[in-house]
């Protein structure tokens, strides 16, 4: 009767099963809430978890029923360490929280301590402009790593090389100015540590000149690539209401439509003098977060160009011998400088008692420090408001009901950095 081979079972129910007893589940919730749930531990050594994150997934087939991220694998007690260091020494450990955006961490901390000291108005303009310049450079480098690793998670290897190449160009500049590629601790309370080296601005000009072409390359690789868009669009949707309720900040919040950017809302340093847009989208999915970050890289370069044009000559540290280290040549010539140097290095400076919350817009969102001083030369309490700690938490909400493969997309699009999540 048919051309099927005779070893195939006949059509119909397998022998021994009463067709009346077979219940076909129809409603999706019946399938999802059945007894088929299996627990799958993703991480802490999974390549797509960007460090050491474990997500315990309750899955039914390919569908995620529950998602519980387990963090703390990188906990190093940075807050405790910072409370036992001098104010300027604390900058070195605070660098290492969000190790992809170290300068923005220090930026927030320095602004807070300067408010406690009451020297906010006396920070030289060149120092403020350079802080903005380096914060924006950090934003681009951080987004480069995000883009590269996010693409690798989704199976595209080449964007990583393009992104890291661009990042290295910027890190070379950061290294030339601060002495270190990764955790530069370039900022100090009261300004920045040393002016730019000779010829640095010309190198920056060269970077500015080639940036648009490099950015176009990055966009061409992924933005309209159908494989990429299929994986990203409508994956991990967060509504504006949920984004606010889950304390999302930065690109994750702006991709949901709320154009909340601390650089615009509470302009610090000289951000109110530059023209830039806050890239915002309303879709709230992974693709929207991808586009917002790409646009942010271009806006960051726009700010860098304006800082470059407006950069003023002058001092880079506050003129206050009790806070700023004296210039090195002065130590050899003046007794007072030597004494100040000795006192600042051996016991630091004291900060008036009080508390302050200071936040800046980091690459991942609001990086805030609630700093309490008791008048001593060490902070009493340094509470960090880590952007990716809060952003990552939302994975519990958005992963449920999606496919396992999409969890990787969502994690990447939230861009967590575990130095900051675990501290």
């Amino acid at each position, binding site marked *: 009767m048919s051309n099927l081979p005779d070893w195939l079972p006949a059509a119909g129910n397998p022998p021994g099963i009463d067709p009346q007893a077979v219940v076909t589940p129809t409603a999706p919730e019946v399938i999802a809430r059945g007894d088929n749930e299996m627990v799958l531990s993703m991480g802490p050594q999974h390549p797509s978890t960007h460090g050491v994150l474990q997500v315990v997934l309750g899955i039914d087939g390919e569908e995620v029923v529950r998602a519980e991220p387990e*963090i*703390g694998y990188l*906990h190093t*007690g940075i*807050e*405790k*360490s910072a409370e*036992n260091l001098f104010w300027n020494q604390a900058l070195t450990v605070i660098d290492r929280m969000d190790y992809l955006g170290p300068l923005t961490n220090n930026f927030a901390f320095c602004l*807070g301590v300067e*408010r*406690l000291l*009451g020297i906010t108005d006396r920070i030289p303009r060149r120092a403020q402009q350079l802080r903005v310049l380096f914060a924006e450079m950090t934003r681009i480098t951080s987004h480069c790593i995000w883009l590269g690793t996010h693409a690798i998670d989704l199976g595209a290897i080449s964007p990583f090389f393009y992104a890291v190449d661009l990042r290295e160009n910027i890190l070379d500049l950061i290294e030339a100015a601060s002495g270190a590629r990764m955790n530069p601790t370039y900022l100090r309370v009261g300004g920045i540590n040393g002016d730019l080296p000779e010829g640095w601005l010309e190198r920056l000009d060269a970077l500015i000149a080639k940036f648009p072409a490099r950015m176009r390359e990055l966009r061409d690789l992924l933005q309209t690539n159908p494989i990429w868009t299929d994986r990203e669009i409508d994956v991990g949707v967060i509504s*504006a*209401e949920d984004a*606010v*309720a*889950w*304390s999302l*900040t930065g690109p994750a919040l702006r991709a*949901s*439509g*709320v*154009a*909340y*950017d601390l650089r*615009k*809302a*509470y302009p610090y340093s000289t951000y109110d003098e530059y023209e830039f847009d*806050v890239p*915002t989208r*309303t879709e709230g999915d992974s693709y929207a977060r991808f586009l917002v970050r790409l646009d942010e890289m271009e806006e960051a370069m726009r700010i860098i160009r304006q800082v470059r044009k407006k950069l003023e000559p002058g001092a880079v540290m506050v003129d*206050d011998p*009790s806070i700023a280290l004296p210039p090195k040549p002065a130590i050899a010539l003046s007794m007072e400088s030597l004494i100040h140097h000795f006192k600042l290095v051996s016991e630091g*400076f*004291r900060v*008036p*008692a*009080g*508390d*302050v*919350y*200071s*936040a800046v817009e980091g690459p991942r969102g*609001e990086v*805030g420090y*609630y700093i*309490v001083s*008791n*008048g*001593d030369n060490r902070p*009493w*309490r340094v*509470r960090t*408001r880590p952007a990716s*700690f*809060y952003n990552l*938490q*939302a994975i519990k*909400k958005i992963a449920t009901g999606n496919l396992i493969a999409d969890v990787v997309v969502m994690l990447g699009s939230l861009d967590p950095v575990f130095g900051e999540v*675990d501290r």
Partner: protein
Amino acid sequence: MADRSAYTVSTAVDPTAVRPPIDDVNEIIRTTPDRVLAVLADLKAQGYRQLTDLGAADYLERSPRFDVIYHLTALPAQATAVAELGRPRRARVLCGVGEGVTVPSAVALWPSANWPEREIFDLFGITFSEHPDLRRIQMPADWEGHPLRKDYPLRGPARDRTPRPPFASKTNVPAQMPPTGAVAESLRRQIFERMHRNGSDESEAKS
């Protein structure tokens, strides 16, 4: 410039003082654990829709000992442009918490309070009632103590107890040319044995 030597150094920052803000915070409210949830719900109704941060601080000699600090930002719950948003209001709620006192959880108001409350429980030992999942988050589940308390040492005794292998002292090695051949092999074996011997034989190995 103010005379900085006049600043008092004390471990107790005044518990009841509400200092004028020197940051972007518009209102500072000090409250107690039994009223904090009502205060927070009231603020949320006033438009403070985002729980920006939830942290704690230990003042050790102060009574109440801890502060749980909420930072709230008045963000809209729908898509908003930069111009409409302007400069959102910010509030800080300080809740004094004594040792062993339980604070009501804010998870019902903001789901994002889940992890920070777990972190405060983990690192300060402050418990939250009605929390859906109160367990350690940063430290291992079997950890003892709460590291961010001021009476918790910066370095634990575990660091001193780390076993170190007893190395051969210099007197054992002839002070001429480096040994070669069979002599070197026997020395290497001796050192290897000492490194892998139990701690009880340490004194013998040194002599």
